[in-house]
């Protein structure tokens, strides 16, 4: 449940996001103030991994947003449910697990800043993809995906590098 503080802030973010001019970022749905869906694309049309692909991000907000980081992950979607009739998959990336959970310090409580917002997080993820040319999953992906029962924000990631 979004608290009053979170609601107020999200209500202010929403129109800005709807009118966004950032290329490759598109608000898909924001029916309430708890869960928003954003589509992102890597703008580099020659990118060996992500060119021509669209990926879907799910933001979930607690009542303490933006003091507390939102829960952000990639999700799958069928072609039929998407506006462009193309399916959404989980992008290959050494910091993205195959269940969509993202290992990024920005989304962790130590790295999060309340000045961040949905658009800035989307942009960070966009550039995290654009800068990657490794067609691989994080180490231990299989075990993590099979055994993890925690919500993304409770997972204790160790950040091996901060430039992801």
């Amino acid at each position: 449940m979004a608290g009053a503080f979170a609601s107020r802030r999200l209500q202010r973010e929403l129109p800005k996001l709807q009118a966004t001019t950032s290329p490759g970022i598109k608000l898909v749905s924001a029916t309430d103030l708890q869960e928003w869906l954003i589509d992102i694309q890597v703008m580099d049309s020659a990118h060996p991994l992500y060119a021509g692909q669209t990926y879907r991000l799910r933001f979930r907000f607690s009542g303490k947003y933006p003091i507390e980081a939102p829960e952000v992950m990639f999700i799958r979607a069928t072609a039929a449910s998407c506006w462009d009739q193309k399916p959404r998959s989980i992008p290959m990336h050494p910091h993205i697990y195959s269940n969509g959970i993202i290992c990024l310090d920005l989304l962790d409580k130590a790295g999060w800043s309340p000045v961040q917002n949905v658009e800035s997080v989307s942009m960070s993820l966009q550039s995290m993809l654009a800068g990657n040319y490794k067609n691989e999953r994080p180490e231990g992906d299989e075990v993590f995906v099979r055994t993890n029962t925690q919500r993304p924000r409770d997972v204790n990631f160790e950040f091996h590098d901060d430039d992801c």
Partner: protein
Amino acid sequence: MDSEDEFMSGASSGDDFANIEDSDDDFDNEDQDLGFSQDKDIVRTSKKSYEVDFEVLGPSQIQLQQDVQIKDVADVLGQPPEAAAILLRHLRWNREKLFDRYMENQASLLDEVGLEEDASHTPSTKKIPDFECEICMSGDSDVETYALKCGHRYCVDCYTQYLASKIRDDGEAARIQCPTSGCKRIVDSKSLTFLVEDNLKSRYRELINRTYVDDMENLKWCPAPECIYAISCSVRKKDLAKIVPTVTCECKHPFCFGCAHEDHQPCPCSLIKKWIQKCEDDSETAHWISANTKECPKCQSTIEKNGGCNHMTCRKCKHEFCWMCMGLWSEHGTSWYNCNRFEEKSGNDARDAQAKSRQSLERYLHYYNRYANHDQSNRLEKDNFAKTEKKMTLLQNQSGMSWIEVQFLETAAKTLQECRQTLKWTYAFAFYLARNNDTIMFEDNQKDLELATENLSEMFEQPVEQLSAKKLDILNKNTYCSQRRVTLLSDTAELLKRGKWTFNISLD
């Protein structure tokens, strides 16, 4: 002689009082040969080789330690105490490093921790025309705003919420940064006290104290629940392979200064960590499975053979095979129930591997069972303190002994507990010992202590009617147990200190 002694030791009369009982024998024996160094000897012998020096600190002493250091640094650097505190916390109370960094580049250090040159200014809020706060994305000209030296300005409401969340939810205090992403400026305690509500201030102070103890290598919190004391001890991390630093808090909780685990004499920290991991790990279950089962060659179901002949029929897939060679049963032709491929090399290898695995499993179980047994008894006896007291009252009523005269039961209960605790960990220790003469000596010591402890336990459990007649026996056994325990711990600690033990595993 006596009077001379008193004269010599006049300066430390406090110590003498504590040692008077212990030293009675010494006085008798050594009366003739020395007078001068005697006092010193008593002090030396009173500390056993497995004991370490430590000091218990209460909240006010922890505060005082900090204040002294802050004042020291403030005097040396010519900074206000507030600034000195931030600097010390920032560099984790490492004064040498602080002085080095300060002398090297004062401006950059001050900048790094968010201190301005004029640290004496008082924080205040400001109204900014047409202000929009980046956190709540709203605001106007008459909202109060605040910024640290970095100039990142937010409305007071948001700032307060941000700090409250950091203090309350994340337990941060000394190193909270400016809300701006990437800004490393630390929120100083003056700003913090200015912004947060009163009920959070005490929590903040508590957290600040916590970080002090956490940052100091010679300090550790007592891990007992709700305990407010910290222990100061000079044993360092690198010493832990050579010593087991057991300390006892003011709250009576004994624990290991090295790893904050319960008292685990005589087993070094790194070994108990491995042992606990091993016991918890289901790798041991896997071990059992590998020692006791095989897989169906067709459907890979795990099968435990608990009797019968070698002709196996898998319950799941109905596959028929030979338990010995795992080959198809149909290929065994007429050699019914007697696999003649048994001597083949592949069969031999499989058998060897299985035997080895079984042997190592049995070895582990030998130590584990004894460890778990003492652990269990110890736990029961801990719960039984109330029972001991009842027993004492009962004995008092039945035998006409005074309360002081029945104290031997409580002493015995305490000894039993200590011995069980020690015995428990001797098994974890022995599991990792390589076989040699020292190990044999250790096991002899262990056996003696175990036997004596079981005897004492048996005496202790007798019906109350018989206890008064057994008082002397119990007292004697009690003393014997304590002595055996001290011997075992001292001998083990001595060899550990000298690095003489050979382990079948690396100590780190």
